[in-house]
């Protein structure tokens, strides 16, 4: 239900109503500049399709994902930095939209944990080893 509500909210949001893109011009067409397209594509892969189940907007058939792709390409083409667009999206739709959890108090454990696991594992494993006698 929450996803549906979110979808309705998104449909009603002025961002998409305002944007000058009848039929989402850049939804299924690449930007002519390969470098810009690469930047747009990299960002699209990090943006969650809010109405899909576990897909990014880069690989979803839904209309909403198409609108999002178009929005991202339009803004990249206008010279905006991917990070600015991402920040804008997060501000608008919440952290849920970003597949790349930004470093913050709540996500810090997530990023520190891999290192902790390795250290803990090495510490546990050390008991298994025999000291090497020199020579």
């Amino acid at each position, binding site marked *: 239900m929450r*996803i549906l509500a979110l979808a309705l909210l998104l449909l009603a949001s002025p961002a998409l109503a305002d944007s000058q893109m009848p*039929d989402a011009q850049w939804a*299924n*067409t*690449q930007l002519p500049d390969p470098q810009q397209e690469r930047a747009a*594509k990299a960002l699209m*892969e*990090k943006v*969650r399709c809010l109405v*899909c*189940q*576990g*897909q*990014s907007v*880069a*690989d*979803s*058939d839904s209309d909403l994902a198409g609108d999002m792709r178009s929005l991202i390409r339009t803004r990249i083409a206008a010279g905006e930095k991917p990070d600015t667009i991402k920040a804008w999206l997060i501000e608008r739709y*919440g*952290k*849920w*939209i*970003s*597949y*790349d*959890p930004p470093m913050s108090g*709540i*996500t810090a454990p*997530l*990023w520190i*944990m*891999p290192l902790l*696991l*390795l250290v803990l*594992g*090495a510490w546990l*494993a050390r*008991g*298994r*080893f*025999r000291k*090497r006698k020199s020579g």
Partner: protein
Amino acid sequence: MTAELGLILLLIAAALAALQFGLGAISLRNPQAGGHASIKPVAVLQGIAVALSFLCLIWVFLETDLSVKLVAANSHPDKPLLYKFAGAWGNHEGSMLLWVTVLGIAGGAVALFEKRLKVTSLTATLAAQAAISIGFYAFLLFASNPFERLNPAPETGQGLNPLLQDPGLAFHPPTLYFGYVGMSVAFSFAVGALITREVGPTFARAMRPWVLIAWIFLTLGIVAGSYWAYYELGWGGWWFWDPVENASLMPWLATTALLHSVTVLATRDGLRAWTVMLAVVAFSMSMVGTFLVRSGILTSVHAFAVDPKRGAFILALLALYIGGALTLFGLRIGTVREGNRFDPLSREGALVANNLLLSAILGIVMVGTLYPLIAESLTGEKLSVGPPYFNATTGPLALILVAVMAAGPVLRWRRDEWSAMARRLALPILFGAAALLAVVLSAPGIGILPLLGLVLAIGVGAASLAPLWKRNLRRTPLFTWGMVISHLGVAISMAGMASESAFTKETLTAVTVGETRSVGPWSVTLKEVHPVAGPNWTAMEGAMEARRGSTLIASATQARMFASPPTETNEAAISTVWDGQLYLVLGKHQPDGRWQVRMWWKPFVTLIWLGGILIALGGLLAMIGRLRRELKPKGEAA
């Protein structure tokens, strides 16, 4: 009547499981009671009863008996036969019945074939297996009865999710379930060994073939699932770090670690506690996976079951079994001798590194998958953890793991020398260096992970063959071949992943019929678009023609419309050539009359799944090799 028969058989199986558990408990307390002899036939009968119950479910699906609620909700008279058949497990209740069926059959198979364990250990193992079954029978009977009737019966059924109407997906879930639930045997062996205090090489050798079987199925299940997502979702992705994919990856990681540590226990009598722990963890991960998928707690491509009550039931079972096993582990592990120690630079040392890295990756995948749930329950804020996180954290560890894999098989047991290792690996290192030079020169600007992936794949591919070096190949044991082929498979699969991520070319465009666009080295023409009709769908089919030099490939892609339930899917046109795949998708018809077309050229992408199949094949060879050696009379084995 078939549905009622199925329910009765299910009740009988549940009663037999209770009997099996009771017999086991009694004979462990009182060895003179004679329960040891009768527990085996009970386990076999339980397996047969639950298998027959599952056959009843398949039967009602085949005849589309719409008075059965499950059939009405998930099937349709017009559905092709294969999907009526597969529909039996393409839903919550049916897949849970398949789950306990595999559990019961696995228990029966242990009772029939296991000859190496001491009789008390075998009894404890079968009792543990029955204990797991009882919980899941209760779940089926109280919370998810697959045979429930519907009165009055509806005129027609609701159909199966069209995304699931695909031959690959018809057999993907059972394959994974054989792997998931096969691990229950390892779990029961571990519990049995803890109860009877028999943690040693005999236990390890007895458990190993079961672990191998489960691992082969898990590997094949994941490979099939990945290929299904690749061709069915229509965007060329082959791994999404979707929670349900992670749910299948976690038991695989734990089982892969177990497979390696069990070798240390069987050969060198080391890593006793750790191996038992891994056996518990591996099956726990299978149950966690089942919980994640079946409870619908995570929203994902696969979440076709959403019911919190059932989730709570599975969660309670999970807590009971994992908690119980860990408590037993805590109580008994003090009495398990530590086992032999070894030098850090040794075969054992490399296997410990393997276990450490696999466990770390497992931890990352698990925490990353569950983190959004934890964060939301703590702060109320919804987070997403997706591919950028998983790639950045598991990628480097996987590369180190693969590098260790190159060294492990050429190291000696107990103790080795750095210089000796370097000598044995000189040739692979040379190969890797040559690959580094070649890639950097031919593809400047390649990302660091794909670059390292390609270089390591070449080096490790060469190193994986090193154990065969200077050996008489015909006298090399089959399990050594198994290891070599599995490791080679890892290198090949990694080469495919690195190549796909570094060299894929994408073209998204809109064309009129007859127009040509290029993608990578290919010129692709949309020749014509015409409607076609299938058994339960209609489609617009785009005939495509792709040309590269003198090579000409014709293929067809469809945009399909299903009526029940109303859904649209894309059938990609995937053409395989020796150096990769051309992936073409027909999209929507635009108001301006042009057709949207998505095109990808993916060099060597096929190696991803080819490598995966080799990994499983290596497992099969290892299993046959081990069984052959162990079934031989003692005198010959030397």
